């Protein structure tokens, strides 16, 4: 009964979202909104991965920027320097980044809690330094320019309007796949790991393996997002792949609701719009504002903005119905 209601809710939400997503670029496709929405789509992909890792499996990562950057740089280097087909480069990037996450996953997940947070933080910082210092591959601080656009047959994604649909096609695919995983045997195993590792092992769940697998999945999502970023901006340099981005992803996941796949869109949208429209004025101090948002949401809306708003609406409806009954 309850799940049926929840199901209806989510279908309605998804339908409304799709409608919104299709209408908005037509209305504003010459304006700045299409570009913001492209970024929201890209960030949502990274955020969903972290939601699966953090919200469902209970494992923190403060280094998602590393995988995002790896995706972007693999795509840039493979297409620009080695002349790969961009689609092939994207696939190779995802496989290589996933492979990298797999290789570091087993040692890194021997750690828990704060130590895991520190290790992933270190990973992010190391990768950010490598992007900057490995001049001969990455072009150093100036980066790589002239990355080609993606294209299918003769159709090139050379305008923001076109890339908007490309990015959201990938984003919705990632969201759908994530939702399917969450509502499956695998999703239960992930939540079991979060609930109690001892109990999860006792019912035959290979805890270490599931942690690594979901870590790899989040890395692949971030890598795909990074590749899309590279082919959108056609230019990569180290600055978008630093510590600040990893923090932003955590804030996006928390604002959207850690244990919510579709909430990731809300989180990404809220934080992105905030940072583009308002936080610019704070300059270097924006990190502090992110921290503040993180704390406030954790304290007052621990299940995220999406759930908080939905509950507020249901409370409002309930009080109205009661008033109606009294009258």
């Amino acid at each position: 009964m309850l799940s049926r209601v929840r199901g209806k809710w989510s279908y309605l939400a998804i339908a409304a979202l799709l409608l919104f997503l299709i209408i908005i670029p037509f209305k504003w496709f010459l304006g700045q909104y299409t570009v913001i929405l492209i970024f929201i789509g890209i960030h949502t992909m990274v955020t969903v991965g972290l939601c699966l890792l953090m919200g469902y499996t209970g494992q923190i990562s403060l280094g998602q920027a590393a995988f995002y950057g790896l995706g972007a740089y693999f795509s840039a280097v493979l297409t620009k320097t080695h002349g790969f087909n961009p689609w092939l480069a994207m696939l190779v990037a995802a496989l290589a980044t996933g492979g990298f996450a797999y290789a570091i996953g087993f040692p890194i997940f021997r750690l828990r809690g704060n130590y895991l947070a520190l290790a992933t933080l270190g990973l992010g910082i190391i990768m950010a330094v490598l992007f900057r210092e490995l001049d001969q591959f990455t072009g150093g601080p100036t980066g790589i320019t002239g990355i080609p656009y993606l294209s299918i047959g003769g159709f090139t994604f050379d305008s923001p309007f076109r890339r908007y649909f490309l990015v959201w096609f990938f984003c919705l695919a990632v969201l759908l796949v994530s939702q399917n995983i969450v509502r499956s045997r695998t999703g239960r195993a992930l939540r079991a790991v979060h609930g109690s590792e001892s109990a999860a092992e006792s019912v035959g769940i290979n805890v270490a393996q599931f942690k690594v697998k979901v870590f790899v999945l989040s890395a692949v999502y971030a890598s795909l997002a990074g590749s899309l970023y590279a082919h959108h901006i056609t230019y990569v340099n180290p600055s978008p792949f630093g510590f600040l981005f990893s923090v932003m992803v955590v804030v996006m996941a928390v604002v959207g609701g850690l244990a919510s796949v579709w909430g990731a869109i809300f989180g990404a949208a809220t934080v992105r719009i905030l940072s583009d429209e308002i936080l610019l004025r704070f300059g270097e101090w924006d990190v502090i504002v992110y921290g503040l948002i993180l704390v406030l949401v954790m304290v007052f809306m621990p299940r995220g903005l999406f759930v908080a708003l939905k509950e507020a609406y249901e409370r409002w409806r309930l009080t109205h119905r009661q008033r109606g009954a009294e009258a």
Partner: protein
Amino acid sequence: MSGPILETRGVTKAFGGLVAVDNVDVGIEAGRVTAVIGPNGAGKTTLFNLITGVYPVSSGEIRFDGVPLDNMPTHKRAALGIARTFQNVLLFGNMTVLENVMSGQHPRSRYGFLEAALRLPKSRREEETITLNAIKYLNLVGLGLYAQRDALSLPLGQQKLLAIARALATEPKLLLLDEPGAGLNRLEKQELGDLIRRIREMGITTVLVEHDMDLVMGIAEWVIVLDSGRKIAEGTASQVQRDKRVIAAYLGEEVE
């Protein structure tokens, strides 16, 4: 008698200088309800943790169904057919009652990330079986009505039954219950006793650690007594009750 399903030979576990389990030999007969009793700190839970592979043994050997367990990880032992409950229950608090039991079906189902991600027919078929089985085990422990509740919203007595349902859902040959009666009232304990008898009728070997002697005397066909990590007696409930060393262990007398 059909022989032991689980055998320990000279099993010892030391934590630094403390020997929690000291050279213990036990044989758990298949199909029987066995109780492990002993004063606090006797090593009962440690023995369970050794059988399920939470810790490696310091020395000695454990064989399950003729297979030496050696350093096999816990999740593989669950797949082999060893299930357990915990003293502190350890339900999955982020799931419903039904989902908790469905998690128990993990080792009896196959489909993984890819099938789940794409919702391939295999995943939907298996998911149906998992759900039906979970409902069956939930009904067995009498919690069918609460399937959609959050697991931690149940009172303690029902949480403990849910933990048993989750363990049964792994379809074990051997079920280890760690203090299933603790914190239950008299009526709940009676129901627990009935449930353990039903589990026995299903052909599942049960071992329980329990402090409530009435419960132990009512259901256990064999009793093993541990004290300070050593096995000091075993036998039927009435034999054990008359054993001088057992009485001494519980009352703290010196035996000459």
